[in-house]
């Protein structure tokens, strides 16, 4: 027998939990204290993570490959049990009330997860049934979600015929069938072209505007910048920074000017000296690279060309330059440079580590 129809919304109290109404009194969407996860081979993937994501926020979890992002999100989505620590999602405990969590979250895995043999509409319908969307609402919900992710035209085409971006959009739609108050998105746009990425961002913005809390992991600062109210940066299983996107970028100290210099190391070193002594930049950070120098400073956009002129006047040949906003790499550089002075370890750059066991 198919699930019976009912207009009555699932009452969370049937799980034995009274949830007070009213936005302010409700528990945080995600509340993590001292989360630790050690894999069977002894790899510590997550080491003492503390997180609190209030309802309605779009929260970004940043880090390089293997930092512990996917492991953390899998713990939150009840796919992995924490080794230790307290993890509550939508007010439910992740170990003892996992089914209640599954009813109240949407989860989109890093690998696109759809049934290629079913059509777009059938994939969404299966998700509707799996999440117990009342039968009378399913048709409407399927249409609504197909519209949202702009797959209405190909509703009856098999998913195996879709492009990567279309599959990802379909995957996103299936995570939203039960209108969950909280959605986990694990690197939702990795591997997509910029156009497909922008489209997905647009959908995420829409559902966030409706009040859905979003918890996403990403490697792209731009993605976090576009979508997130708040970010945390995870490195080697620990949160090393958190704050708004602009907070984090401020830690980098401005925009970045990459300059390619003709000649040998001596020429680059001379260029670095000129840049360091360049008066128009206040507290510029200058690094030598393999091909030239990199200058990070607040006013690099205004005075970058002046520096190029100064370099030419110094007898150096500039063969290329590029002014850009700080990337995640720059944020990591800034953050890890900071930790290097704290604990004395050599942390010039984040050392990526295989994502231990979390596929």
């Amino acid at each position, binding site marked *: *027998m*198919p*699930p*019976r*129809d*009912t207009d009555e*919304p*699932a*009452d*969370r109290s*049937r799980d034995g939990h009274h*949830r007070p*109404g009213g*936005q302010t009194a*409700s528990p945080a969407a995600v509340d993590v204290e001292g989360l630790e*996860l050690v*894999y*069977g081979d002894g790899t510590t993937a997550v080491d003492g993570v503390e997180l609190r994501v209030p*309802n*309605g926020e779009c929260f970004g979890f940043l880090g390089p490959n293997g930092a512990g992002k996917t492991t953390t999100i899998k713990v939150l989505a*009840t*796919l*992995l*049990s924490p*080794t230790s620590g307290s993890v509550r999602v939508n007010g439910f405990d992740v170990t003892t009330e996992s*089914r209640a969590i*599954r*009813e109240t*979250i949407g*989860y989109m*895995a890093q*690998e*696109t*997860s*759809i*049934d*290629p*043999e*079913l059509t777009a509409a059938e994939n969404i319908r*299966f998700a509707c*049934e*799996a*999440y*117990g*969307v*009342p*039968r009378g*609402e399913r048709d*409407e919900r399927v249409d*609504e979600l197909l519209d949202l992710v702009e797959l209405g035209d190909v509703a009856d085409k098999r998913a195996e015929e879709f492009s990567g971006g279309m599959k990802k959009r379909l995957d996103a739609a*299936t995570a939203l069938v*039960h*209108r969950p*108050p909280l959605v986990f998105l694990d690197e939702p746009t990795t591997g997509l072209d910029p156009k497909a990425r922008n489209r997905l961002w647009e959908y995420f913005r829409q559902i966030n*505007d*409706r*009040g*859905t*809390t979003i918890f996403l992991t990403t490697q792209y600062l731009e993605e976090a910048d576009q979508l997130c109210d708040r970010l945390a940066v995870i490195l080697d299983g620990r949160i090393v920074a958190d704050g708004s996107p602009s907070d984090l970028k401020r830690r980098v100290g401005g925009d970045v000017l990459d300059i390619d210099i003709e000649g040998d190391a001596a020429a680059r070193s001379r260029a670095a000296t000129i840049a360091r002594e360049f008066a128009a930049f206040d507290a510029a950070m200058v690094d030598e690279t393999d091909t030239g120098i990199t200058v990070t400073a607040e006013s690099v956009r205004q005075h970058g060309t002046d520096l190029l002129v100064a370099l030419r006047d110094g007898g150096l040949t500039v063969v290329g330059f590029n002014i850009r906003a700080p990337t995640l790499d720059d944020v990591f550089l800034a953050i890890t440079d900071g930790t290097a002075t704290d604990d004395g370890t050599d942390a010039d750059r984040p050392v990526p580590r295989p994502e231990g*066991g979390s596929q």
Partner: protein
Amino acid sequence: MSTDVDDGGAAVDRPVQRTANSFLGDVWVNFKRWNLKAVRNPFVLVVSLVQPIIFLVLFTEVFGTVAGSAVNRGIPGINYETYLVPAIAIQVALAAAITSGVGLVNDIENGMFEKVLVTPMNRTAVFVGKTAAEVFRIAVQIAIILGLGVVLGAEVVTGVVGAVGIVVVGILFSLWFVAFSNSLAVLTRDQESTIIGANLLQFPLLFLSSAFLPLSALPEWIRTVARLNPVTYGVDAARSLMIGQDVMTVIEVSWFGGTLDGVVPGVAVLVGLDLALGAVAVYLLSRASSSDVK
């Protein structure tokens, strides 16, 4: 878009619209999905149905005359078609059971396995629904083989009751191999390995049994292997039903007199095998779906 969607403020603590899915409801959802996939994926149907049909037609046409006399020495008065159809029914069950594990591997590979794990569906119901879809398909395929066999000249002596009995024996036979192929799927997590592993077993299992010729016509070593081969038990039970006589060749009982003496021992062995391999598969599947850190 309905109004409550735009009701941003209340949406934060909006109760999730969800019917309380019953166990049977979850079974049904998965049963439907796997049936739909079976219809969509001709590979599954072709592999598990066309190959046995080719066997049925070719064996009866090519070996019919020769094999018929060997068969008649043991069981007088039956043609090779009648002798072979129960074996082909078992072959169908075997071939279809292989696809069960392949389906699971595909689910693991395309992420649907994990996707289902994050839904609130009952996990036992998920696997029961999938297996039910496969058993349903096997039943339909055996019915097709029986019908085709009759067209080719086979005779179901016990009539409709016997035909239903053969379908039941086929299902009981398929379950241990369903469990086996799913275990293989969880252990290898690789489509090719699962297909090869399960397929490699298919032909030795069929040929080293009473499926195509009476054991009395086969070499001694094959008789020894056949005694340990589940196919022999399934085929002999199905064949006893087909011709209405006790033709169980490996266990001699005379508890009931007549046909049931051939059916019951075979069924008992198959049920025991189903339970044993089923337990292994359940253990492996629950380990694979558990959230325990590995």
